[in-house]
């Protein structure tokens, strides 16, 4: 490969940037490899004198923490909403981006407005609705609403991208006699790989990391998620730093795997002639 000044510069920036961005991760890793006693007396930056995987072992085998059970719960509570949100948010974004209908622009403002009221004041009324539906201590509150449009953030994001797809494509399809819903399924969706992957990853990460939701809704510790379990390591009077950091690393791992395996979709670009 011939030497390219541009990509050499980019590589240098990438390496420096990665280094900076990984610094907090380094601290997390180092603390997860130390014993509790070592964390108390050594500098947080120092590499452990005798790195130990004990913290990981404790978390993975402790029957009270029940890592594998919680991982299973968390995966279910992340995958199901991801499917619902990605699918229905795309459906709702489609008319906002590409169709004419009565009240469109004002309904769009209504859509945005649902993001503007702080969740603190709707938390308890929302809890009361869930209680009235008999949904407390079940997974319904996490899965069912995900199929109702998937939230304003995602709809707005998808709308922006659908608006960027050139019109020529659906004009051509219309002339070929394609219906509006066919255009959505065959033209818009296939051309939106990267943004759909983005919405999916965001939703997955958000559900995986959700703390308040599971904490409030779920009572049974066996239904609980990893993030809530993780917080149990940080009690009011004594934080188990070593376990907390090892736990954070363990919780991050599945997300990183999902992210890396989604990469393929991120780079799938748009093509003016494609989509058929």
């Amino acid at each position, binding site marked *: 490969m011939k030497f390219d000044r541009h990509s050499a510069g980019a590589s240098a920036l990438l390496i420096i940037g990665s280094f900076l961005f990984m610094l907090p991760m380094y601290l997390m890793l180092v603390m997860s490899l130390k014993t509790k006693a070592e964390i108390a007396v050594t500098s947080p930056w120092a590499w452990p004198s005798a790195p130990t995987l004990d913290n990981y072992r404790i978390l993975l085998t402790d029957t009270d923490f029940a890592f594998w059970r919680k991982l299973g719960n968390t995966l279910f509570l992340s995958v199901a909403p991801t499917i619902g949100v990605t699918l229905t948010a795309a459906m709702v974004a489609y008319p906002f981006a590409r169709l004419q209908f009565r009240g469109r622009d004002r309904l769009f403002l209504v859509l945005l407005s649902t993001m503007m009221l702080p969740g603190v004041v709707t938390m308890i009324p929302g809890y009361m609705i869930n209680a009235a539906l008999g949904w407390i201590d079940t997974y319904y509150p996490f899965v069912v609403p995900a199929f109702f449009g998937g939230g304003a953030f995602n709809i707005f994001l998808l709308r*922006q991208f659908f608006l960027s797809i050139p019109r020529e494509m659906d004009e051509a399809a219309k002339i070929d006699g394609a219906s509006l819903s066919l255009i959505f399924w065959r033209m818009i969706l296939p051309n939106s790989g990267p943004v759909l992957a983005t919405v999916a990853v965001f939703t997955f990460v958000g559900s995986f990391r959700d703390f308040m939701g599971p904490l409030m809704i779920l009572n049974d510790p066996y239904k609980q998620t990893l993030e809530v379990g993780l917080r149990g390591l940080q009690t009011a009077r004594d934080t188990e730093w070593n376990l907390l950091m090892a736990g954070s690393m363990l919780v991050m791992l599945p997300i990183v795997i999902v992210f890396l395996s989604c990469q393929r979709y991120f780079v799938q670009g748009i093509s003016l002639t494609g989509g058929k």
Partner: protein
Amino acid sequence: MRTMTVILRRALVVVCVGLLFGLAQAAPVTLRYAVSDAGESLTVLKRIVADFEAANPDVKIKIEPVVGSFREKLMAMVAARVTPDVARMAPQDYQPLAARGALLPLDEFIAKDKEIRLDAYYPNIVGFFRYEGKLYALPREVAPTGIVYLNKDLFRKAGIPLPSANWTWSYVPDEQLRQESFTWLARELTRKDDRGRVSQYGYASAWPQLMFETLMISRGVKMWDQNERPTRLNATDPEVVRLLNFASDFVNKHQWAPSQVDLAGANTSQRDLFLQGKLAMYQSGPWEILKFRKELRGVDWDILPFPAYTGLSPRTKGEGSGTSIFSATRYPEQSYRFVRWMSGPQGMTEFAKAGLGQPAIRALAMTPGVWLPAKDATGVDRLPANLQITDLAAQSMAMDLVPEYFRPIADSAQGIAFDVLSGVRPPVETLRDFQARGTRDLQNQIRRQQTTEYPTGIAIAIGTVLVTMGLLWIYWPEFGKKLSQAARSENRVAYLFLLPWIFGLLLTFGPMIYSFFLSFAESDMIQSPKWVGLRNYQDALFIDDSVPISIRQTFIFALFSIPLGVVSALLLALLLNTKVKGIPLYRAFFYLPSLASGVAMSLIWMRIFNPNNGLLNHILYHTWPFSQLGIGQWLSDFAGKPGEPLNWLANTKTVIPAFVIMGLWGAGGGTIIFLAGLQGIATQYYEAAIIDGASRQKQFWRITLPLLTPTIFFSLVTGVIGTLQVFTQAVVMTDGGPDRATLFYMVNLYRQAFQSLKMGYASALAWILFVIILIITVIQLQASKRWVHYEGDLK
């Protein structure tokens, strides 16, 4: 014949009763038991519950551990009427529940109970759980915070004999009393190195205000007139001023105790000093004992009760916990049986044996082999030698239990003590300021007590009108417009696609409308709301000075954070869009910090911003080229104290920049969005530009940037919405401080909602924020027509 029927009937009754009895025997009652325990404490708790179930086969216990936000969850459960049967209760949490009748008074049960005698419990912890003459929790443990841990090795090294339990404190070191004078000891045991830096502290309390509050209680002064129904503030009382000056000098001038500024981070660091042998006296509660037994190997240590003020009897702070029954329970008898197990000798003994809680029954606390070491205990299990003084500490416990309307003012009293002891604010002016501000708040709170019933009927009518008006606003402009055949079918298809959202909107709007109506009420979510008209809005906009401050700080933060966030995300995306080897991995690297849990990251960042050994200051003060340029010194002169490393999170000038810097590490999320946006640009445009011979710069300005405008617009709109609701870091890292510099809008709102239980006021605050964000968003939407370019927009 008649006798036959009678016999048959009787037989039937007998069979039925028998069946019922059998069923009751076969299916034990299940009680839900909510606890805030975690870790080892939860393990022991499970063991005790198993013992209870073995002894009571007709009752099963379902443990529901709640980690963090225990109070919020209990409130939501009470509001939705899905409370557990039994819960662990702290003295500072039960009052609002008891006041609303959510808890069952235990007095009748105890009166009938032959074994549980209240006079066997420490009277002060029983008092903590008494509300209007009734007992709402049976105490399980006492946690007196007037215990002073001594590092005897450091005493020996200084040649100072150990003080006795009769030691006292006064404002000046008493040279005559020597080791019996606390202030003298604190001075003598503080060591400085030859550069004048403290290498060993005489004294520290587990959290900074604890020492000040204990001094106040032991001196017998308060910042308000009385606890039952405070009506007046005494913050400028000469004794209060003298005391805060003393505490402030103790920390900031003499450096006998470390200030929070010296110790970046959480409460654990004072304890770490003690563990590292750099602290001679450490004030905390009995929960430290277990940890110190395990970790203070080779150190000679012991405990003493907090000294009394000269001439007064000892009085210190304390906490504890108990077990309560919710009044909604269907099984009060079984619940009580469980309460008396957990908070009676059985449960208490198990906890005490594990070293996890000092029993609330005094005799048990004094029995060797329970809380005190067994006669035949060996090694660390015998420590500390003076363990029986925890009894004295428990007897001297006192607590300022104030009514809810006074809670926020009591909280801010704690806050000012924290700020003064951190050296952020001077004592006298701070007290004067608090007296003026607090008095205004207090009068306002007392006025707020007068309320009237909520006019539900009128509210529903107004609600209907509002919803109708909303619908009219959406559809009126296009009403009666004739649509072509094609347009009508398009309209139909569009609404078909919108269907899931419209359905979901009903679920979203319910709680929104509810909170709107609540914003005109006084409500704690437990009792029915009381009508206050526009008063919440008036208070927020014209009286409560924390609102303008929180708005200002939030906007300052947003002003820097949003543009920086968008620009850095865009630049990163461009960088990550280059065709370099290993790009997928780099993308993961940049996204990783956004993936880590918010709390863990906050804790990590606290170590980075640490003034003494944090990475940031290390780079600024000690690393080339910054050290050569004197950047650090210049920053210290400009924003902090000259000659001292900058303490980012404890300095009102630097805490917001610190938050902005931290925000940059979360740019990964925005980068992903921009990356997707870059993929959305058809390659054909670039191919055409290259044929035309356009340079890279030209391609960027003519193609990339214009076609990214929809993404930039999205980032700006959601950035405003997200940033104005910034919350987590400010709670975890700075708790709104220093001096309210990070009292962001949501932090304030959250406190009002869940700490002061003013849900109506919090709702009003929320709707004010809603309107602010709405206005900004509408302006953005209007302006976007000028600069955002949509390839696929309708022409």
